């Protein structure tokens, strides 16, 4: 027997929400503002305890409108900032989320989805906020939203969310399912010193030369901290390079384009998608989040019976992985789109596969507060013929 004494981590039992909180802390998040709401409360709970210990700030605001405003302010002062909420709070966040997008302020918003609309089903899962994450705030805007499906991914994608938000200067949304947020599973977190942490680019010019939204071919301009001598103006109005309101058509167009292009020019970096046993799949399941776990089990069961079933699971749900999904589904004769809502992802699939694609679409939609089971997915295979 070899006597290798590698410092191997032990698996621990961890909850999805706690993994998000730990991921945020390890990513360097030091400012949290929020209003507790089931099923996201544990995130606030643990951060209220842990943040003061590492010199961070935790503040419970009067509602989600102010929580969102609060993290935007903290971020512009140089902090990595986050808030977490659920459906009802996510609705309130939308206004200031748009502000964060046009003002290009990095921050992370966690939406632990529950049954809706309105107060809905506080303790039950649903995937009804997928389109709200995309189009919840008004006006044209690109969005980055990530969708984990295990406790380990809760940790990893939270770190990734901070890296993306800092890199692209745009708010990043993490969508979580209630089941995942509340469930605990054995997980082995990666070692802290092996993590890749990205920080926003700081200006390397003297304060008097600094332009907050200076044009640059990569569309991402350096961001100075408020209160460190760099004077700049932030507004929700369409603005020029200095951040002052403008109605000059070409300046407005340039601003709108940079918001879009900084995302669309970097899709390869932003998009993550996982195919599972798709190499020879005749039937594919498309599912995200916790439904993809049921789907994986369904794939394993079906393969034992000789059915060539596969799974396509987006980790980045917005921007939608158009090209990847189209390519992965190319040779399948049917696609089962399983989602815990009344049909949000299915239209995206139809949109991206419309050119010369002949898959049959089978919908599996459940919106009664219960999770889709592997058996329900397997039952859909009968519809393929």
């Amino acid at each position, binding site marked *: 027997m070899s006597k290798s004494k590698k410092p191997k981590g032990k*698996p*621990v*039992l961890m909850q999805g929400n706690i993994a998000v909180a730990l991921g945020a802390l390890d990513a360097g998040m030091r400012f949290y503002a929020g209003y507790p709401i*089931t099923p996201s409360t544990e995130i606030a709970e643990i951060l209220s305890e842990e943040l003061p210990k590492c010199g961070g700030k935790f503040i419970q605001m009067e509602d989600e409108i102010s929580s969102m405003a609060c993290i935007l302010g903290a971020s512009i002062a140089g902090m990595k900032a986050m808030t977490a909420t659920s459906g009802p709070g996510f609705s309130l966040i939308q206004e200031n989320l748009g502000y964060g997008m046009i003002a290009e302020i990095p921050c992370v918003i966690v939406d632990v989805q529950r049954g809706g609309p309105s107060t809905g089903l*506080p*303790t*039950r899962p649903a995937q009804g906020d997928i389109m709200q994450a995309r189009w919840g705030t008004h006006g044209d805007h690109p969005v980055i939203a990530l969708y984990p499906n295990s406790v380990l991914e809760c940790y990893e994608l939270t770190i990734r969310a901070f890296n993306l938000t800092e890199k692209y200067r745009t708010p990043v949304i993490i969508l979580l399912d209630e*089941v*995942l947020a*509340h*469930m*605990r*599973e*054995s997980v082995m977190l990666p070692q802290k010193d092996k993590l890749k942490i990205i920080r926003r680019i700081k200006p390397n010019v003297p304060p008097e030369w600094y332009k907050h939204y200076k044009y640059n071919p990569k569309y991402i301009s350096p961001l100075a901290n408020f209160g460190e001598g760099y004077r700049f103006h932030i507004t929700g109005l369409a603005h020029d390079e200095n951040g002052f309101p403008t109605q000059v058509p070409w300046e407005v167009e340039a601003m709108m384009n940079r918001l879009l292009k900084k995302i669309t020019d970097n899709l390869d970096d932003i998009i993550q998608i996982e195919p599972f046993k798709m190499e020879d799949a005749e039937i594919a399941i498309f599912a995200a989040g*916790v439904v993809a*776990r*049921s789907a*994986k*089990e369904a794939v*394993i069961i079906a393969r034992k019976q000789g059915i060539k079933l596969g799974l396509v699971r987006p980790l980045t749900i917005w921007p939608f992985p158009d090209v990847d999904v189209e390519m992965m589904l190319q040779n399948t004769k049917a696609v089962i789109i399983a989602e815990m809502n009344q049909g949000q992802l299915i239209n995206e699939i139809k949109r991206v596969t419309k050119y010369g694609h002949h898959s049959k679409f089978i919908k599996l939609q459940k919106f009664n507060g219960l*999770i889709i*089971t*592997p*058996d329900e997915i397997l039952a859909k295979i009968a519809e393929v013929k």
Partner: protein
Amino acid sequence: MKTQIRISGSGGQGIILAGILLAEAGIIDGKKALQSQSYGPESRGGSSRADVIISDEIIYFPRAVKLDTLLCLTQEAADKFIDALKSAGTFIYDSSQISINPIDGEAIGIPFSELAIKKFKTTMVTNILSLAFTCRITNTVSLYALRKALRKRIKPKYVDINLKAVRLGVRLAEEYLSEGSLLTRE
């Protein structure tokens, strides 16, 4: 091997804590474990359940189906979940709370909450008492792991009373096992 266990009762009974302890013990035993839960919007009085899956392989689907073991502490929970028990599964229930119809398989009724009041003057430990009993009867996790999990997850000032509850639970199980299951079978 994959073992699926459901612990159920009402909100406030420590059902989810019992689930966490069981999953934690599974991990200490070197297995994969997953605990998921379902409860009503009310923090007390509503139904509450914790599903625990302990397996040698990766666990994907997070809910327990076709239960190997069902532990019920209230009548409501028993009525609701009895059908989820697989045939020849083990059904363990608090007989001071539940009157049960015979089922296909092993049904073990122990007056957990009555015993908890008698021995500890509180129903607070009913969850741990019944969990320890269940663990020993079904042999899902080792006693060592359960005790270790308990020390890890429970506030120090409550560890003692709960360790006593574990001891009582195990003793009850030993008695039950040695006297044969026919004795208490309903």
